[in-house]
């Protein structure tokens, strides 16, 4: 019996040794710079010849487009002169539909934090800034989490109830599943290359371009999904403006306002139109689809015009700059051009095709600028 007791003890000891926890992971040296400090440390590569940077001073170069006859006009006599019924937006202020500030504001703010690391201070941000920026991008429920699920409502849904979150669907429907199929690979690769110290000027431009298109697609998508969830109207407004008042946008809104202030205001009017529609159509699930489309189209048209102004400004910037500054501006345009092709082609399919092909190989910037100007000129 003693022997069996020993066996028992041996067996028990071996059992106890099973199932020890994993060791904690070892923190790497890279990426340890506090995020708050990283923006200031952005002069890496300053000893290199980055070229010359010419600051453009755009001011609605392509003119101010007239809005549709049935547009919502809160800035004109508090909407008294348009065809819309009185609604919550008539005071020319955005009033939340949901309980509180939308969470999308945090993602727009994250875009600005990424900008502080990658493009606000230097044309050649150091590799560590890319790492820090990726950490911001990768935050819980952060901008990366939404890029991964973003779909573009301008394209038809996949059939049979398939969703962009399903395996294989993004590859089959890359236009509709623009986030996982197109934007996310661009951003991932740019962060990877930049984080490894490769082509920081180009990779920061790629991140900027892809994220700005993400905010555009998101603003329109949330305007559409607002029919089922009223608080998505707030997200639409937030993805455009960062959830600010009309005069102080951040993110995409600030970028549009810089190059085309009135176009930005028209887009803001579009946000107010969406909120107005949801106020007038306040059932839990909206019922007035026609009014919704009027509102969303008003926003969409202004945002596209604004994006065209941004592209033209980047081309102007590239035209008057040299070295990395030129390359970076062109890379922004190259990144966004395939995405912008849909609205471009709606204006002028020939010019849109020529614009895309013109970005390949040796670039003739004035020609490219002409394509954009002619298609989107509202003078």
């Amino acid at each position, binding site marked *: 019996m003693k022997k069996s007791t020993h066996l028992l003890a041996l067996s028990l000891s071996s059992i106890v040794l099973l199932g020890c926890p994993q060791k904690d992971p070892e923190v790497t040296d890279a990426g340890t710079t506090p995020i708050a400090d990283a923006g200031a440390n952005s002069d890496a590569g300053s000893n290199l010849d980055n070229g010359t940077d010419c600051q453009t001073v755009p001011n609605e170069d392509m003119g101010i487009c007239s809005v549709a006859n049935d547009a919502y006009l809160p800035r004109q006599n508090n909407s008294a002169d348009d065809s819309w019924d009185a609604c919550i937006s008539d005071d020319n202020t955005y009033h939340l539909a949901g309980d*509180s500030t939308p969470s999308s504001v945090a993602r727009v703010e994250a875009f600005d934090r990424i900008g502080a690391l990658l493009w606000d201070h230097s044309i050649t941000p150091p590799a560590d800034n890319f790492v820090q920026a990726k950490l911001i991008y*990768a935050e819980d429920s952060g901008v990366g989490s939404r890029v*991964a699920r973003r779909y573009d409502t301008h394209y038809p849904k996949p059939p049979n109830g398939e969703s962009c979150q399903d395996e294989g669907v993004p590859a089959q429907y890359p236009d509709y599943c623009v986030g996982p199929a197109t934007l996310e690979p661009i951003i991932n690769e740019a962060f990877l290359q930049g984080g490894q110290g490769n082509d920081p000027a180009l990779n920061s431009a790629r991140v900027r371009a892809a994220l700005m298109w993400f905010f555009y697609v998101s603003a329109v998508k949330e305007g559409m999904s607002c029919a089922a969830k009223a608080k998505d109207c707030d997200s639409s407004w937030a993805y455009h403006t960062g959830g600010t008042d009309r005069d102080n946008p951040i993110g995409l809104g600030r970028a549009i306002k810089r190059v085309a202030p009135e176009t930005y205001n028209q887009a803001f009017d579009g946000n107010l139109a969406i909120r107005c529609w949801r106020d007038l159509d306040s059932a839990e699930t909206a019922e007035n689809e026609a009014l919704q489309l009027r509102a969303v189209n008003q926003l969409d048209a202004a945002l596209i015009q604004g994006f065209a102004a941004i592209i033209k400004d980047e081309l102007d910037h590239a035209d008057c700059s040299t070295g990395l500054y030129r390359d970076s501006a062109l890379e922004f345009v190259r990144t966004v051009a395939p995405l912008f092709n849909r609205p471009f082609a709606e204006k002028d399919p020939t010019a849109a095709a020529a614009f895309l092909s013109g970005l390949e190989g040796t670039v003739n910037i004035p020609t490219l600028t002409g394509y954009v100007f002619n298609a989107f000129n509202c003078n």
Partner: protein
Amino acid sequence: MRRMPITALGVLCTMAWLSSPARAQNLEQQEDESTAQAEAEADKKPTSKEIPAMGTTIRGKRSPTHGSSVERAASAVTREQLVERQPRSAPDALRYEPGVFVQKTAHAQGSAFIRGVTGQQTLLMFDGIRLNNSTYRQGPNQYFFTLDAQTIDSITVQRGGASTRYGSDAIGGVIRARPLLALPSTPKTSSLKPGITFYGASADQSYGGRVQLAYSQGRTLRILAGIGGRQVDELEGSGVLLAPQTKESALIPMMRDDGRTQAGTGFDELTFDSRMDYKPHRSDTLSFALYGYRQYDAPRTDQCPAAYAPFNECLVYDEQFRTLAYATYQTKRLTGFRRLRITGSWQQQHERKTLDRPSSFVRHTGRDEVSTLGVSVVGSLKPSRLTPSLLFKTRLGVDHYADTVASKSWTELTDLEVLVERSRGQYLDNSRYHQGGTFIDSELKWGRVVSLLGGARVAWIDAQAFGDAGSGSEPVDTSWFPVTGHLGARLKLSAIDALNLSWDHSYRAPNLDDLTSRQFTGPGFQFENAALGPEVAHTLELGLTRRTRRLQWDLWAYRTELQGAIVRRPMPPEDCPPDTPGCQASWTRFQLINAQDPSWIYGLEGGVLVGFADAWQLRVTAAWAKGEGPNPALLSTNIAADERTRVPLSRIPPLNGTLELRWRPSEKRGPYAGLGVRGAMLQDQLALSDVSDERIPAGGTPGFVVGDLRLGYRFSRQLILGLVMENLTDQIYRYHGSAINGPARGVQMRLQYQPNFSRGKS
């Protein structure tokens, strides 16, 4: 990382050893004794007049609920019922208990709601030792799942407040599990006997087993050791649940292409245990025990993936471990005491979880560990007869538990091979929490007609946590000294009928989860409140019971008033703590606060057990509860959408019930059969946090009725083959608040050879 090879290796090695000829000697199954809860519950010899509540016993046989000094609303699951019902886990074992509703956020998890509350507001115990530690969450948790059902002899559910005896958290009730013990052999003999159990199920393609050795030397020494393992694949449900309001598919869980298999539901499991019970004297028992649970790669289903997230995003508990070691000394020889039990325990809860987002090349990892040292001294004094008809009994004790929390988190960029440690984990690292108290509980019996009861506890709680400047986490340095108590009376209306009335004052002190944690919960991101105070429950309970040889029934009504209830207040993003981007970016955010006005939970529970034609039993239970409290949104700035002054409490179970019909012509051997039916009504009374919880479909959780058929054969008391044909009608169903649907129609099988299995006298 799959660990099944380790599990399989362990099981195979032990099986190989066990396959050698057993040198078994005489073993006589004589005794049904446990050290578990022995200080209170094994005091008395059973009588047919003291059969416990809710019809879990019949024919006057002894039950785990036997022995409490007063009838409270309680029920029990015996070993025999565990064998016949074949629950997949310890929480699943409670599905047929009245007033208990088992929610599942994952297949590898289960949280029992008792009278509408769960998590921190219910107390889990194993062999008289608290399992609750200071990181138990407000909502459902996975910790009762970390008890291996194969090592449990019985589980008792005591409904209603019980802080006097058990301390903090015992607001909704107490779940007490008792361990299996080796049986003694006949005097002056010894025996060594192996036991083995295999089980499997078709719905989740699971298979597992347990091997154990039982050694006994007369009545002096008993050793039981075992190891178990299980591999569980993804759970097949019966289809996609439709939301009652929209008729659209529930977003959680994600279904595989067959429309039935639920993503994020598989896991692996390894368990080990050993205990020694030594009697140096016939009135003394010294016990040493070790219980280990190791769970690997268990996804949290509602986050695997989360609603709207890509298919390959998944939050997985890579490791969910619990280790409990303890020693007890119990004596009946101390002057003035009928029994005294001293316990020292050490428990470690270890969790490592990873949120993997491969399409973004990002992985978030967190590791949390809680080590708990506990000590308790509990005894019952010898009854004193004040007059020939007045008998006075007293129990008293003191206990103390000390937690130390280690918590870290990291973010890894997998393509860049960069790993960064965040400034804090889910909890504040190196936090400490002490809680304990001393109590006295007395009963005055006047003949056989009236019993009066009363008790009180003086408790102490101390919470300490260092602040974290980087994340704006406030330090915690708080103490509370609550005093609680209860009063009760039992009136025997006749030889078989009794009226029970009790008032209980229980409490729950905020724990480190409330005071320091930041986490994504089902309803949204929740952040801490270092200024919380205790919540206090007053429960008034009235019960009518009848006990006869063939018929038992219970009917209980209760009303619990929660003062200062800790609830989730919706918060705007601008009120998020600094450097916590997950908070601002979450769709919804909550902070725990003490409600200023009282909350109420009231309900009815009942059960009937009928024995007929010798071999047949019918057991029916039902429970209904309703809860409401002040609208926490009204206390928030910038949140004004819901202006109701009072709203339903979160995840209160709907009207639900069970039916079990059982046929068993012989107690010892032969066939048995049974039918088990569970049902619940639609629950559309939703709290604010329920509406934003993707686990709950739009408009609430649909009702259901599900039936299981049980068949088996007892070749002997030791060798049993059992089958359960579950979900006979292939019903799509979900327990309210769960992230998974119940198993599809399928078969469960269990083959058990356990020579020491005799404890299942129900």
